[in-house]
């Protein structure tokens, strides 16, 4: 299968798709930077020790999270999580989600002896940006005991992370809407795929390369050209049989 365009035109189409895909989440990361500024003003040392953010701090954070959810068209939930670097099993998470037309606080279960326990400090949306030390987009995953749905999460470490506390602010995106938009953006460069840092497909124009599958397992396809989306940690590839 090849698209209607020649090699040079396909390369240009891929470059256009790269710009548009980065632009899709640029407003999300702008909101996250504002939330990180807010998080930087919170009393997180006390909160990570007790598991509870003081109410005035919750109000500050809520304003930023609600603004992100209201203004970011792909955002379905947003919040902040922080752990002490000395005691990674103790921490605090405050999160808000869109439910119908309302934004409501979501209470995660943080008791390790509960079946609903949300072990956020070991979640990829917390660990990967903490390890990279930079904004990160987490490829589609099922967020067990969080959203319990296929989720894409944009996350950035807060500057507070330097003070013995790891702090991540993050936003969940509507995975289905995001993937629909990316598939449409990829179509002019077909056959093409958006892949994550592990070369797993985020989205593609090829039926047998479904979301999540490793590119190496698609025996009939090879990478012809590649553009790295450094800001996301992902790549766009042109495919050939």
């Amino acid at each position, binding site marked *: 299968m090849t698209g209607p365009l020649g090699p040079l035109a396909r390369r240009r189409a891929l470059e256009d798709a790269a710009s548009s895909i980065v632009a899709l989440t640029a407003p999300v990361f702008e909101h996250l930077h504002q939330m990180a500024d807010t998080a930087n003003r919170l009393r997180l040392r006390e909160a990570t020790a007790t598991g509870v953010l003081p109410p005035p701090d919750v109000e500050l954070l*809520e304003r930023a999270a*609600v603004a992100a*959810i*209201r203004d970011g068209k792909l955002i379905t939930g947003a919040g902040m999580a922080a752990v002490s670097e000395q005691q990674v099993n103790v921490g605090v998470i405050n999160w*808000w*989600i*869109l*439910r119908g*037309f*309302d*934004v*409501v*606080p*979501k*209470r*995660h*279960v943080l*008791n390790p*002896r*509960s*079946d*609903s*326990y*949300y072990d956020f400090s*070991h979640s*990829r949306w917390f*660990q*990967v940006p903490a390890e990279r030390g930079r904004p990160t987009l987490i*490829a*589609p*995953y*099922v*967020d*067990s*005991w*969080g*959203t*319990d*749905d*296929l989720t894409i999460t944009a996350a950035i470490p807060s500057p507070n992370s330097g003070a013995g506390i790891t702090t991540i602010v993050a936003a969940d995106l509507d995975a289905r809407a995001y993937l629909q938009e990316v598939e449409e953006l990829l179509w002019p460069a077909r056959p093409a795929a958006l892949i*994550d840092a*592990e070369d*797993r497909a985020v989205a593609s124009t090829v039926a047998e390369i479904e*979301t*999540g*599958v*490793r590119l190496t*397992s698609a025996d009939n396809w090879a990478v012809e050209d590649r553009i790295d989306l450094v800001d996301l940690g992902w790549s766009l590839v042109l495919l050939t049989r």
Partner: protein
Amino acid sequence: MNTRPERSLDLLSTFTRRVLFAPLADQGRAGAVAERLRTAISLGILAENELLPSETDLAAQFNISPVTLRDALTELRAAGLVTTRRGRGGGTVVSGPLPDQRRASIEEVSSLSSVDLRDLADWRRTIGAESARLAARRASERDFTLLDRGVENLENASDAVDARRADSRYYIELAAASQSARLSRASIRLQVEYASVLTLVYAHETTRKSVSSLLRTLTLAVREARVDEAGRCAAQAVDVVAARAATLRGHGWEIS
């Protein structure tokens, strides 16, 4: 768009809780609600100090009147299973598990026929094996880490309740690694439904070790993208549990 006060705190958006608090087929019975909550607390699905949703939200979720829910909570309070704190930051919290979880599990499974048990195992095998096969194609490095931790938790489980919880979380992580939201939800629902059987089966340390060994092999197969082997290991792990459950049932669930 508005933000709501704490009264509307979202405590139901975790699927495990939506399964636990699913609407009752037989409406209006406080006893049925109390029984469902008592079982969940007894099996450790709801843990000590865990906050339940507000009475308004919980009654709506169960599809019963707030008066009926209050009757059910009164029954549980009298049994020492929940405590209700009034005022800001209050609510109903789980006080602790029943002293005899084994007895509660036996009461729960006593009505299961051999066909019911076979049916549950068939469904569990289907969900587990397909989750494993898809995970072998789609799992990420992060999923491998989570699955490894899950196996370790089962290996290190000190009792049947810990082992049941570790097993449940492993299968839910496996379904999540398949990247299928539908499989994940089916797996969560099944783990709640099968909890009492697993609690009794995992009282047997040899069974715990057999299953954890198979799950260790399964995790390696997922990591190395060996699709068929991953499916086979998942099916074998389910069959070990099903065989033990059938033996237990044959002895009236009383042997340890």
